[in-house]
């Protein structure tokens, strides 16, 4: 239920602009990997190429390979729709479907696969996904109310529930806590800790403590200057990135010194 990701020689372009250059990385199944680095260094860009969401942006393209358990998701004949069904994504801002109830939101992805669900299956799945996202107790009495009526943190957990309801192999999160208060953030960090028992989790964060708290491995990206491509500087065990990084650049960044 959880896949290994191998990124090989990945270059990412927006039109002619080379946004990210030569990323090599191996992400183990059932682990949490954090992407850190200054703004504009390409963290979101790399993350979105892991489920081909960058293709939504006109002109975006990649070269290189991304292997999920050995299968290149950029191989000939691979349908991005199928990739995205295996690789779920949670966005920076919670985006539940406003016209759908909480329950419909959770089931939205499952319904897509044209699976017919009996009422009891739907109820079970809703409960399982919401429990998985640590939201069940807060919403179990109002499953049929709109998802947009929840608080920001609850909405974000609803989005996580929606993403895990389809039982993906990999879960990508782009700054999932950046719009949340510390308590909701803590709830989601706890959740990420639980999620890694089942999924391969990749999370982008600007919060170093968060990276240190939740991740097993950390990737530090940096950019030489505006207009230059972002690069993967160091990818290592989180503990060693934060205690004795190999590269001086990494050390400068995590200790708050730049340049």
């Amino acid at each position, binding site marked *: 239920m959880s896949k290994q990701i191998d990124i090989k020689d990945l270059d990412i372009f927006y039109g002619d602009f080379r946004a990210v250059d030569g990323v090599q990385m191996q992400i183990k199944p059932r682990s949490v990997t954090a992407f850190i680095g200054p703004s504009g260094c390409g963290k979101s860009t790399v993350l979105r190429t892991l*489920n081909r*969401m960058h293709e*939504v942006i*006109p002109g975006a393209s990649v070269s290189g390979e991304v292997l999920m358990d050995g299968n290149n998701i950029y191989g000939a004949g691979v349908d991005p*729709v*199928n990739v*995205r*069904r295996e690789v*779920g*994504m949670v*966005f920076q*801002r919670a*985006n*539940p*479907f*406003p*016209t*759908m109830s909480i329950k419909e939101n959770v089931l*939205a*992805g499952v319904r*897509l*696969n044209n699976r017919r669900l009996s009422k009891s299956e739907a109820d079970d799945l809703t409960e399982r996904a919401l429990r998985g996202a640590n939201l069940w107790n807060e919403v179990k009495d109002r499953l049929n109310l*709109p998802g*947009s*009526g929840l608080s920001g943190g609850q909405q974000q957990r609803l*989005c996580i529930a*929606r*993403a895990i309801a*389809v039982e993906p192999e990999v879960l990508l999160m782009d700054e999932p806590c950046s719009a949340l208060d510390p308590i909701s953030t803590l709830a989601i960090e706890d959740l990420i800790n639980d999620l890694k028992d089942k999924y391969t989790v990749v999370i982008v964060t600007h919060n170093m403590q968060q990276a240190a708290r939740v991740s097993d491995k950390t990737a530090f990206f940096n950019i030489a200057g505006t207009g230059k491509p972002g690069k993967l500087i160091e990818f290592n065990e989180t503990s060693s990135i934060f205690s004795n990084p190999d590269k001086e650049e990494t050390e400068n960044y995590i200790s708050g010194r730049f340049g």
Partner: protein
Amino acid sequence: MPTSTQTTESGPTGPSSEPEAGQQMPSSKPDGRAPKAVVRPGDRIFSAATLIAGILILVILAGVALFLLAQSKDTIEAQLTDPSQITGGKGFFSYVWPLVIGTLISAAIALVVATPFALGIALFTTHMAPRKLAPVLGYVIDLLAAIPSVVYGLWGIALAGNLTGFYLWLSQWFGWIPIFAPAADGSVSQTGRTLLTASLVLSIMILPIITSLTREIFLQTPRLQEEAALALGATRWEMIRMAVLPFGKSGIVSATMLGLGRALGETMAVAMILSPGVLTASLVVSGNQTIASEIAQNFPEAAGLRLSELITVGLVLFVITLLVNMGARAIVARTSVKGS
């Protein structure tokens, strides 16, 4: 209550008592009243202009309604004293109701035909078409809206001649449905200038309005919603169903209602195409008439009571349009999305 006690405190007792006193705006007066909001001339001019514009619309609308009512006086009197004076000889209501039905039927057909096409085109140009082609299609649609209705009328007359064969076929195979029933001798309109032809031309006339309005709405779908659907593994069509259409629902309703308004009131094209006659259920034989076309065709020779009759008919159309728009508002208010 609490505010009044506070203000009396903070003023005369001086700055020493409360730290807030020192933070007060310099413009606040010593008597402790809350500072007046600053009025800027630009804001004033703007709000006055909008107020005038708003009032003007109401005045014009009321003026039209009053004019119609005043001119209807003769008809109302005739209706009350001697209904047989009115065209048709059976009073105003038996004169007007076939027109109302004809108007509603033609507008409804136009709407039913145009809406799916309009939504399809709008979705295609916003979410499906290659990025180079989409704006071109948009321009073409907007151009359609600029064609004068006389041209549609001429085109409709040309079209009518070509539809007779189709109408005959319809009456042969679907004649059991009353709207496609042939005349008693098994024939259909020889010229093709039937209510169905008029309705089809109307549908093309309202297509551009509905299309460009819905296109604008679909373009505004929040990117985040679209990405949410795609990231769940939605195909493009599924994304449209999950994110684009629910978001645009109220907009779609108002766009179709604007189209309906145009179809109800369209005069020239219908007057040119339709060869009018008595109300019949069948849409493929000649007959039927709409309000706007009735007025246009009879107005030039009308005088006295006949003129007043036509204006009263216009009043009826005014009321119908008003009701339709109010209905549309109610629907929009009920279906609009709350929250993000």
